[in-house]
């Protein structure tokens, strides 16, 4: 069994990756950095990353946490959906110097936050024959609702390049460049013709947080908002434009109620979608026939 050098004599900063309610996709993003992974392990000491390495010490995760750490950089994936996890995140915060939440579950509650708009007991009854065995909270909430967070990295899933930028910036002691503008900027940079203007395809790009590299429009698909809202989105204009591009009230409701459903910025959408169209949106181009 090869062993790492002792922690006390190891100059590398320590990294921990934590998981709450999620699909694992965001922490897998770290393992998808194939070109950088071995270089990364030279620069940081990965002390807690269960997707990759056994934990140290004895006891379950909770027991193991006591007296462990502190960790220089903690990446946190997933949302808080159980009373136990609400406690565990407090502990993770205490033993983390710099805490970054990664992905829509951790930053907005994720797809499982759809329970926030329903009766969770009905959800349990729909899936489990014996609800009494299941312990869960009424809501799925982002990490920032429980503890202070140093940085949020958006996306469902997060983007590999952005994750590397965050880690690189951390190692260099500078602020990471993760802009809060809309996906439209990324389409321009990528050289993608606007699919709404050219084809009348409904697209959430104008109100969605950048970071993915504007993938969907490059595939002829309207952005579906998996990175959540940009800073200060103009939802009134967006909803009017979506209606203009042929989306029904129900479709608009649904497209905002997905992976970032519980983002506070989305709260006005139901009322906006139900409003009568007083005036056409600002863009008045007539669209050619949309491709089938």
């Amino acid at each position, binding site marked *: 069994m090869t062993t790492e050098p002792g922690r006390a004599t190891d100059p590398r900063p320590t990294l921990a990756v934590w998981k709450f*309610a999620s699909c*694992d996709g965001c922490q*897998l993003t770290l393992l*998808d950095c194939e070109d950088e992974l071995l270089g990364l392990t030279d620069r940081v000491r990965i002390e807690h990353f269960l997707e990759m390495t056994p934990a140290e010490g004895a006891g379950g*995760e909770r027991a193991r946490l006591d007296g462990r750490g502190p960790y220089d950089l903690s990446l946190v994936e997933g949302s808080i959906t159980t009373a136990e996890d609400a406690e565990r995140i407090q502990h993770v915060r205490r033993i983390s110097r710099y805490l970054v939440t990664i992905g829509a579950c951790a930053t907005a509650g994720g*797809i499982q936050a759809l329970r926030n708009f*329903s009766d969770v007991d009905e959800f349990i009854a729909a*899936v489990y024959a014996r609800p009494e*065995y299941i312990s869960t909270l009424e809501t799925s909430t982002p990490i920032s609702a429980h503890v202070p967070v140093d940085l949020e990295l958006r996306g469902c899933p997060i983007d590999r390049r952005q994750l590397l930028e965050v880690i690189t910036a951390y190692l260099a002691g500078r602020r990471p460049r993760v802009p809060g503008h809309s996906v439209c900027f990324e389409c321009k940079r990528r050289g993608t013709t606007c699919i709404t203007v050219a084809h009348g395809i409904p697209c959430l790009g104008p109100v969605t947080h950048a970071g993915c590299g504007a993938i969907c429009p490059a595939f002829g698909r309207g952005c579906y908002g998996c990175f959540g809202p940009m800073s200060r989105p103009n939802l009134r204009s967006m909803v009017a434009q979506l209606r203009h591009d042929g989306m029904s009230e129900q479709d608009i409701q649904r497209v905002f109620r997905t992976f970032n459903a519980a983002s506070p910025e989305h709260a006005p959408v139901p009322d906006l979608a139900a409003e009568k169209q007083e005036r056409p949106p600002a863009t008045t181009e007539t669209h050619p026939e949309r491709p089938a």
Partner: protein
Amino acid sequence: MNPRGTRVLRLDALARVEGEAALHLRVDGGTVAETRLRIYEPPRFFEALLSGRGHTEPPDITSRICGICPVAYQMSACQAIENACGVTVDGPLADLRRLLYCGEWIESHTLHIYLLHAPDFLGLADVVGLARDQRAAVERGLRLKQSGNAILEQLGGRPIHPVNVRIGGFYRTPAPRELRPLAERLRQAREDALETVRWVAAFDFPDAVYDHDLLALRDPGHYAIDSGTPAVIAARGGPRAAREFALSDFEQHVRERQVPHSTALTATLDDRRFLTGPLARYAINGQWLHPVAAEAARDAGLGDPALGAICDNPFRSIVVRAVEVVHAVEEALRIIDGYAQPPRPAVEVPPRRAVGAGATEAPRGLLYHRYALTEDGTLTGARIIPPTAQNQTAIEEDVRRAVQTRLDRDGPDADDEELTLLCERAIRNHDPCISCSAHFLDLTVERT
């Protein structure tokens, strides 16, 4: 009475096995009386939250069940909806779907082989230790994994939760010239994949035999990935011919029940314990492996798949996975070489009031979806049966056998530390994919 304290197992990362699983073992004298794998992931209620959604939404929503096999969820979801709507997607669109799926098989299997499973056989803690010992092997593994991701990125837009999949097909199909660089890459991947088979075949394998019925999709002429009929081979001693049943009857054969110790539902097949995944696929479809993969299997000591060889040692599943990677690379190359861009990226899938089922072979085994739609396409019901829920009982039995074998050899006071390591390995053989469940095991050994 000889009560022993709780011992904890430190479990290497299992792919998509997060949070905590606990294994409860009860040993009476020299006999294992009970093994319970406790999975307690926070439940996310996907089947419930799909209710009231539109029929175009399940591929994107259900992919979020698993960041490691999102394509499997997208493909099973698409097929179930298309089945409900009476639409068949075939020809080049079906080939492109299989190409995408091959990318996921390559990526997911390679991740498991190199980063999660191989360290078990080499007495190492993790891939970092492995890289110190065998850097070239790890670099080969990462390169091979990346070639799978390259397919997913080229065709799907990104490797995790690809964006280009929709019911009926794709949003955009690639021009043949866009796939050429992929073919270059895959020719290198073929060498890496064959080298991987040779590498893992040389590991030391503990003696073990599993005894489960085997379930996989069967599609005569093809090693089933994205299509086929459910087929079963009986456990050792039973008839070795595969019997098929209709997908529409799946839930009459595979029944899930809830047990108090887990948030995952556990399943039986016709009231018997069963296994899905690479070992089941190899037993049922081995004769249809690509020749290069079949030859690699023979050279690796897996017998002759053309003659219906079955790999019955669960520890050798790593070799079968490596063979499946060779097959997936070959299949991807075959699809790219024969690819002509379809006239339209997707076929129409108009909704109707119906129930539809779909099943495909995720890297970890058969993944079943069923949806009920109203005439405007609103979902009124959803049922998802993932491979790990189907495999839980088989995994528990494998653990029981492994521990019993050790107790028989070393007597009732067999070393707990060794037992725990053995339990971890017996579980990891099946690459369990319990979204948000355990990464290490609290092992409670009750001795009476």
